């Protein structure tokens, strides 16, 4: 009885949750609708005649214009090797690299700030925390100028290097690392281990929950990053998925039949984030609980 009452109380939450899924469902179903069905008004909720045309349109011929026939997602970007998959590959490579490297760097910084007898470490930590108060957009201009002068525009280093220093991750890992007893470090030192070895062999295994929580935040943020790639990318082959989606959206203004293609691209784009979320759901929830980050 008590359980039933509890479920009834949660009912509005379930309904709200379902409501939030509607746009995602709409995107997914629209990607598989044939064009006449997609443009029908009122719209259908379930595809009556599912098709993969939005991904690959067999009837599309670049030399012949036919109403209701537009190039599928994988037939676009003929000048870009791999087409849309190249953009996904760019996003995946950049997000993965930044996630791994920024976590390693942040973990090293956190170790130095918590477990080493570093002169002025309190001041350094305060500076790191204070830097979180500076809007990240403020650093865009200096970052851009540095990247340009290094001739890293339109390159992976241009994507990756400016994103490696993440003050929040350092702050989070410092907080977590403080909960690890210093005795472990002292014992390792007595056994003759060097600082790097202690960090890698003793501390890092214990940091796994915190690293996993941060990894999810970083990978999602980098996967969705739009502004920085928009500014530094000058060649189609270097574009990431958000930039490509923005461009694809422009085609829809002139021909509504591109809507299905946009939905197909959006679906493919969101799948990795959904997979990451489902796979690391527990860490994600824990990360929110630990860091106090909200929606």
């Amino acid at each position, binding site marked *: 009885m008590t359980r039933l009452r509890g479920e009834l109380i949660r009912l509005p939450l379930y309904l709200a949750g379902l409501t939030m899924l509607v746009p995602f469902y709409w995107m997914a179903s629209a990607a598989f609708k044939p064009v006449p069905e997609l443009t029908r008004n009122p719209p259908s909720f379930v595809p009556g005649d599912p098709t993969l045309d939005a991904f690959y349109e067999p009837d599309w011929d670049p030399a012949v214009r036919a109403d209701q026939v537009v190039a599928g997602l994988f037939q676009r970007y003929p000048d870009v090797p791999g087409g849309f998959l190249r953009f996904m590959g760019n996003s995946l490579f950049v997000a993965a690299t930044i996630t791994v490297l920024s976590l390693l760097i942040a973990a090293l910084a956190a170790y130095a700030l918590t477990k080493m007898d570093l002169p002025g470490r309190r001041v350094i930590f305060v500076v790191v925390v204070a830097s979180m108060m500076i809007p990240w957009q403020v650093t865009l*201009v200096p970052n851009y100028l540095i990247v340009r002068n290094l001739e890293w525009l339109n390159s992976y280093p241009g994507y990756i290097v400016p994103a490696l220093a993440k003050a929040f991750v350092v702050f989070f890992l410092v907080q977590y690392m403080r909960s690890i007893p210093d005795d472990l470090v002292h014992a390792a030192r007595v056994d003759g281990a060097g600082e790097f070895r202690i960090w890698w062999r003793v501390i890092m295994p214990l940091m796994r929950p915190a690293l996993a929580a941060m990894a999810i935040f970083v990978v999602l943020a980098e996967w969705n990053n739009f502004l920085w790639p928009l500014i530094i990318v000058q060649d189609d082959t270097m574009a990431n998925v958000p930039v490509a989606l923005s461009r694809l959206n422009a085609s829809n203004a002139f*021909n509504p039949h591109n809507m299905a293609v946009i939905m197909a691209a959006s679906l493919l784009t969101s799948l990795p984030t959904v997979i990451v979320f489902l796979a690391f759901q527990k860490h994600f929830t824990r990360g929110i609980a630990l860091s106090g980050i909200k929606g």
Partner: protein
Amino acid sequence: MQARTLAAALATMLLAAGCTTTGAGSAPQEGADGPAELLFWNTGSDEQAAAMQAAADRYRELHPDVTIKVQAIAWDDGHAKVLTAATSRSGPDIISGGLSWGIEFGELGGMIDLNRYDVSQARQQTRPELWNSITSPGGAVYGIPMDMTLYVFYYRPDLLQKAGVSTPPATWAELFTAVDKLKASGVPTPLVEEWGTFEWLPWFNYLKQAGGSLYSDDCTQVTINSEQAVLATTTWADQYRRYGVPKATVDVGAGLAKGEYAMAIGASYLAGGFDSGQPALKGKWQTAPLPTGPAGAGSFVGGKIVGAMSYTKYPQAAADFVKWLYTDEAVEILQREVFTRGGELYISPRPELLAKANASDNLKQTLQTTLDSVTGPPNCKGWETSGAEVSKRLQAVVNDDADPRTVLAEAAAVMQGNLG
């Protein structure tokens, strides 16, 4: 959307930063004698870029030393991206973008004054109203018109006839009479507006039709606070207050197809998507020039400019290609390819070639008539900055019942301040 705003802000900040740094890309400019590889950022859809690439490929056949790669950049992000390129002196050799972009980026030193490469032929072939819009107050031409977007009056003849309206409204009075009749006949929203909905753009049409202007011809005076502008503003505001024109952007094709809308004032590019996007609308829609006001016809013309960036290593080659886009052959390619690849209508800045466009006779006739009364965006200093402020004040007439004279005086003060 926030990211795009940030992109614009970033680019603006780069102005200041760029002024104090030496550009890594500021290599000495070379002539066009040697082989040139040009990068062209074409603002618009992927299909438009592909059409431009087809033109560029033809140009290469004629000029084997010049290779041009065309890339699409989206309208939403294009301004920030090109501004970044212009201020950092790194990026494409050629760009296309909004009609006002040439003056804006050119005055920042990011684009070449094409007068150095003799664009007199293009000037002669373009309507003077359009050419004035892209000429800086100092006479520089940083980008020449590449295509045009015109305002078109779309309507459903069957719905009009059912409501007792035999011909498309030709005047303001006829327009609003038609709205009343259509409403009475059961059309829920007789008139809608698209392309700058509830912004200064459609208001500008009323301003011209009332005989008003934003600035004096020589850009020395702000003229928005005239009696003609008061009339235009009142009429424009009455659309929303009395005649139920939606303030939010609407899907014109879907509304016309369902019979929810009977008339729409919108951009010429809408026409390309009606038949394919709304099969139920096929054969049911027609076009006409915008209804006229007390001063006669008047319509805003938009579109794109194309120009060469100041840091390009190949200014001569870039300028030559830009000029070549005015040839019969280039226009023909663009008309064909834009239609084939995107189902769109390409309206060349050379009005005499409109007859060859892929469009119905009715639409071509409408566009031809409209061309006789077009005015482009002002080329006066500070208009780019003032536009949004002017829109806000105009909207206050509808949203807050503000007095048109007061808001126009406020708008004039803003524009005068930006005019310097």
